[in-house]
């Protein structure tokens, strides 16, 4: 088990290295000159050149990358071109906001999705099943920024129950989490349903019933646990997607999160910030997937890591 974890952690090294290379060179392929952006429209050629020199932009790309990588390994992701502050500080404050948002949204998705999926599967083809699946279809089809706007309109403007935007206090968390978690809940519900249906028709569920196991335990102990593998996979992927994909929701609710920050930084050609942010997201994504892999061991006894 520990061997497996160590092996998996070592495997993440090339992945993360690949991410830095990809992002670094892609950023430099985008037209636009950060020196020009910083120096301002009014700056003359000489000032821009000076700025370039200061930022190290005149060195060959591979030298720039090498310097960047060496610094990154020492925990220094450079300074933001725009604000001049350290990227690690800038990114980490925003990262935790986005992480919280993604985390609560995923929790909500799991909670609603699992319950809905189980009900749907247990009562297949009944009114509740059809109702849940139609609701799930809506949940999947609604763009989250639109849902966010609708929630805002209704709960904040019409009813005045919740604040329109911002982050930090519990009442500010509710709407963005709802907006972001709905699609995930729908995906998880559908996944749980189909996976549960597959398991429920298995003979060992009949065996459990024939033993006289209470229906409640048949569903939760015998069926659900065996049905969890695809669901856990989806949950892991969902969480990763939310981390990087919360931009629109963050924008709608004016949340100062990582997604929005990356988009702004791309616009300003703030290379160090974009690279640092993407690296952090990749790292978290890799960790989440590692956790998912480890959970397989507990869900499927046939998977043996040694």
């Amino acid at each position, binding site marked *: 088990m520990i061997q497996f974890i160590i092996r998996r952690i070592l495997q993440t090294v090339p992945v993360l290295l690949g991410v830095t290379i990809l992002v670094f060179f892609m950023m430099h392929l985008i037209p636009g000159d950060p020196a020009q952006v910083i120096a301002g429209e009014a700056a003359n050629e000489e000032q821009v050149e000076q700025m370039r020199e200061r930022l190290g932009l005149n060195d060959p790309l591979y030298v720039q990358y090498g310097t960047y990588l060496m610094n990154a390994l020492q925990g220094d992701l450079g300074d933001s071109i725009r604000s001049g502050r350290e990227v690690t500080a800038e990114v980490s404050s925003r990262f935790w906001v986005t992480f919280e948002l993604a985390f609560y949204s995923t929790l909500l998705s799991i909670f609603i999705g699992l319950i809905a999926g189980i009900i749907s599967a247990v009562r297949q*083809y*009944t009114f509740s099943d*059809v109702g849940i699946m139609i609701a799930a279809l809506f949940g999947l089809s609604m763009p989250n920024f639109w849902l966010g706007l609708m929630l805002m309109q209704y709960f904040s403007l019409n009813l005045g129950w919740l604040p329109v935007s911002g982050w930090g206090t519990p009442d500010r968390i509710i709407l963005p989490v709802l907006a972001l978690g709905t699609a995930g809940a729908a995906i998880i519900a559908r996944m749980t349903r189909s996976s549960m249906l597959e398991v429920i028709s*298995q*003979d*060992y569920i*009949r*065996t*459990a*019933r*024939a*033993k*006289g*196991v*209470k*229906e409640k335990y048949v569903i939760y102990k*015998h069926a659900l*646990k*065996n049905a969890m593998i695809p669901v856990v996979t989806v949950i892991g992927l969902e969480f990763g997607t939310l981390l990087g994909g919360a931009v629109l929701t963050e924008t709608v609710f004016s949340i100062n999160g990582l997604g929005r920050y990356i988009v702004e930084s791309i616009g300003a050609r703030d290379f160090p910030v974009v690279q640092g942010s993407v690296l952090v997201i990749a790292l978290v994504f890799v960790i989440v997937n590692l956790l998912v892999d480890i959970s397989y061991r507990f*869900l*499927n*006894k*046939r998977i043996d890591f040694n």
Partner: protein
Amino acid sequence: MTTKLLEVNNLKQYFPIKGGILGRTINQVKAVDDISFYVNEGETLSIVGESGCGKSTTGRAILRLDKPTSGEVIFQGEDLLSINQRKMRKKRKDLQIIFQDPYASINPRQTVRQILDEAMDIQNVVPKPERLDRMMELLQTVGLGSHQLDRFPHEFSGGQRQRIGIARALAVNPKFIICDESVSALDVSIQAQVLNLLKQLQRDLNLTYLFISHDLGVVRHISDRVAVMYLGKVVEIGEKEAIFDNPKHPYTKSLLSAIPVPNPRKQKERIILKGDVPSPINPPSGCRFHTRCPFASDICETVTPELRQTNSMEGTHTAACHFIEEIESGRKHPSY
């Protein structure tokens, strides 16, 4: 004196076919349609028939693993279909089932210990401190080693898994066990082992079996009595010898003629039926076999024959055909 342990009366199991956006029931699959039979204490009754004739459905209906449409299943004087869920769960102690597929019928997340313990725990048959001894004993009974107690199902072979299934069924000291194609997934040498194990257990523990199978050789080996099913109906039932040596129903005859004879020089008469088994959705009227029966007449299309005995039949042997006597005396000729 033999006593009836289980009596099935007019059992029907229809499955609805739902369709349309509202999920209305548009038709029904009549998987088991009005069958009656009984099983004596300590005997083995086999149900044979081809795929889709309702054998397994009958077994599941008896245990209420599906919800039967109507009928009675009387076990030791009590109708299992009319008691409530809680009482039924308690009753499951006496009635167990061994399924066909040993790969699918045990929960892959449970060790042998958990599988056996759960059964004993629910039915509370063995006090906790004695359970371990009982588990060891069970494993020994079915020919597994006690060192295999903490293994997961995937660590066993098919034959061993089926033994786990048997141990599980035995764990609660049942009186009646339904073997639903319990050996058909195993290869022949293992089949024989498991069959002999079942027979031996029957002698030792005074078990009663309902043995569901499509394998006539196996049925001949293990049964006391045999029931032949066709499209949800019992067409012939009786003592093993009567069914195999003196079959009366045209379907039974053709079914038995399909048994291979291990003698290459012996010419055997093979009765080949025309066509396929009709769909159990809207099954044929009258005698369900009339669409394929070489002896079918007009009456067969309209009147459903009842199980009945004629002078040439012995014991409890009955068959559901309008023309038993005529076919026997040669007054009626096959149309092929």
